[in-house]
């Protein structure tokens, strides 16, 4: 068994992201030690801990799905046990790290009172839930990495918004017991599902059609797809592409845009999001944080457009660029048109998310208008789309998107600093900075697109 464990560990250590994660973890611990030298409040700790949990969850899920979905996983003798043992060991290391850090955070005299009555097991149970969520994204959603960052940011914001309520919930014995039981069941189901992954299941979208229940599920999914397509009239639009593509810029950009596709059109998504945000807003009101949802314009808008663009681009895949670049246009024309299409896609996503946020900020509850909210956060967030677009297009050629996340995180941190700039009377500084940064990254990216190999 030790020989097999060693071989499995090597599948991790041979990956560059593993060492990146180790380095990031070290930086994280260092930053934490610095911030928590005199102790750290429990809610800050929870928010702080959610980031490594999300990232490690999604990376581990992704790694295991690669290992378990190959046909070899079903044919190599005693394959599952060493792989699951190593994965469990890594999860254990993350848990131990978070427990040690929690112990360190609660030791400061200034925060000792706040930590009293906070259940460590409760924190662990909720951390486990978040880990499972991100793990399942990584395991079953091919473009999980694009979803992990918004999830962690949203979780972080949610915790911050109602910290006292959440911490009391996390410390309630029956709730913790229930969460632990649910986590155990979910872990068992996830591991079982993953062990049954193979090429065939991937090909048939994880459904074994020989099972009648799966056939029904597939039929339902087909009906649902038909319903949404009918609603969106996407099919009609795809059929309406002029062949050959028109010589004008608009037709050519539209050609690339249609290649991205959208599950739901903005006109359909906006009302759904308005209702969702109202429900969340109502929930926040109940915990005394009524204005939290509109405050999230910068984060939700940017992460939404960023993940939307990354998902589309990664879905298109590197191979498809070989086809795209063979279209009967010059390379710079293709790059320019593809870029415009992607930028429009990002902006569409941004408007789809921020319009409902504005509506909720203005009509915090249906039929109860407030004074018009300030447009500055929206301006900042819109300006941030330009460097984000540059970053997305820069990292298309890289197999790993860690760089994109780091850059995205920097932009989002800058957005969070916007209120302070407003207080200093410099509201225009941030949009101008974004504009300059955006132009530089786009120019750099454009040059790379023109020169990169399409192997």
């Amino acid at each position, binding site marked *: 068994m030790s020989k097999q464990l060693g*071989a499995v560990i090597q599948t991790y250590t041979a990956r560059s992201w593993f060492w990146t994660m180790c380095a990031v973890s070290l930086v994280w611990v260092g930053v934490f030690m610095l911030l928590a030298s005199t102790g750290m409040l429990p809610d800050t700790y929870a928010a702080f801990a959610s980031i490594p949990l999300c990232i490690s969850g999604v990376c581990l899920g992704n790694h295991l799905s690669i*290992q378990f979905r190959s046909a070899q996983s079903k044919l190599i003798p005693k394959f599952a046990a060493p792989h699951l043992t190593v994965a469990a060991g890594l999860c254990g290391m993350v848990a131990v790290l978070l427990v040690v850090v929690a112990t360190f955070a609660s030791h400061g005299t200034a925060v000792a009172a706040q930590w009293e009555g906070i259940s460590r097991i409760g924190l662990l149970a909720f951390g486990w839930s978040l880990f499972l969520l991100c793990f399942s994204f990584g395991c079953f959603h091919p473009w999980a990495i694009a979803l992990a960052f918004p999830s962690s940011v949203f979780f972080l914001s949610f915790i911050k918004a109602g910290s006292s309520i959440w911490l009391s919930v996390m410390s309630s014995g029956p709730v913790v017991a229930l969460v632990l039981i649910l986590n155990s069941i979910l872990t068992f189901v996830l591991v079982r599902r993953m062990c049954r992954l193979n090429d*065939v299941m991937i090909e048939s979208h994880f459904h074994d059609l020989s099972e009648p229940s799966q056939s029904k599920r597939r039929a339902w999914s087909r009906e649902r797809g038909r319903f949404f397509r009918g609603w969106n009239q996407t099919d009609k639009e795809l059929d309406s592409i002029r062949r050959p593509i028109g010589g004008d810029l608009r037709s050519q950009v539209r050609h690339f845009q249609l290649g991205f596709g959208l599950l739901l059109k903005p006109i359909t998504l906006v009302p759904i999001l308005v209702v969702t945000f109202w429900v969340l807003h109502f929930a926040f009101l109940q915990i005394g944080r009524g204005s939290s949802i509109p405050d999230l314009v910068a984060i939700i808008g940017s992460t939404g457009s960023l993940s939307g663009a990354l998902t589309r681009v990664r879905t298109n895949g590197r191979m498809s660029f070989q086809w795209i670049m063979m279209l009967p246009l010059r390379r710079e024309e293709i790059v320019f048109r593809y870029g415009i299409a992607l930028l429009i896609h990002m902006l569409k996503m941004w408007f789809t998310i921020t319009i409902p946020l504005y509506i909720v900020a203005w009509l915090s509850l249906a039929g109860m208008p407030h004074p018009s909210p300030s447009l500055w956060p929206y301006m900042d967030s819109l300006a941030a789309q330009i460097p984000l677009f540059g970053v997305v297009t820069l990292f298309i050629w890289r197999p790993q998107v860690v760089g994109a996340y780091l850059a995205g995180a920097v932009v989002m941190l800058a957005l969070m600093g916007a209120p302070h700039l407003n207080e200093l009377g410099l509201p225009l500084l941030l949009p101008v900075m974004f504009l300059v940064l955006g132009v530089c990254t786009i120019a750099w990216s454009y040059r790379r697109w023109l020169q990169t190999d399409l192997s």
Partner: protein
Amino acid sequence: MSDVVLEMIGVSKSFEKTEVLKSIDLSVARGRVVGLLGKNGAGKSTLLKCALGLMKPNSGTATIFGEDAWNLSGGAKARIGYVPQKISLYDWMRVRQMIAYYAAFYPSWNDTLTAELVEKWELQSEDRVGKLSEGQLQKLALILALGHEPELLILDEPAASLDPQARRTFLAAVVEIASDQSRTVILSTHLTSDLERVASDIVMLKSGVIQYSGSMDDLKESVKSIRLTTQGRLPGRMDLPGVLAYEVHANHALLTMSGVNEDRIHRLEHDYSATAEVRDLNLEDIFVEVHRV
């Protein structure tokens, strides 16, 4: 020890409304080299996946070494080598790491053999798997499948991307495996010339149905091309029993027939007052004729 290594009884498999395999009955005996032949989409890969327990048949049973293919034990798996059509290895690992990773799971791993093959096929141990060309990847997958000297080797289009030299080495390796009477090889390929060199048995699959299953010699012995020449005029239609394909040109006709023997030839000559010229067919000709109907 049973002589049947792999057995499929009444195996059917459908994807949505498409029936890919239709009640397949197949039995592969120990020590045979079986060539699985069929057009694209005939169901070759699905048949192999069902046989290996990678796919669950809608009906019927598949067994390997007497065990249910869907629930193979670790011991049975250690006796199987498989190269899938779509090779998915870990892109980020190096060739030597990939081999070491596989070796760790097999008690009977032959380091000398793998080292020999790596050298013969000119793979660089320090190359990353993700950087390998299609052909190099196929070579590596073959090494991984051969490394534990399996009793049953299943290869789905193994030589498609290999260069002629590597194909020759690969076929030599298959022949070497096949020379050990306790080893069995099932080989799916479009390259009929490869099959002619190594296969002892042929399974011909057409639209999910087995058209022929038997020895290569019997197939070649029974399927012939017959040229009939007469002084008069031959009928336009010659749908005779056993005729796979025919072409009639006034006073001569070209028939591809199965089950050809001296009696049938004499009867043909008598019925059409013609002279018959019999020609042997190679596997590729037989394949083309079978699929022409």
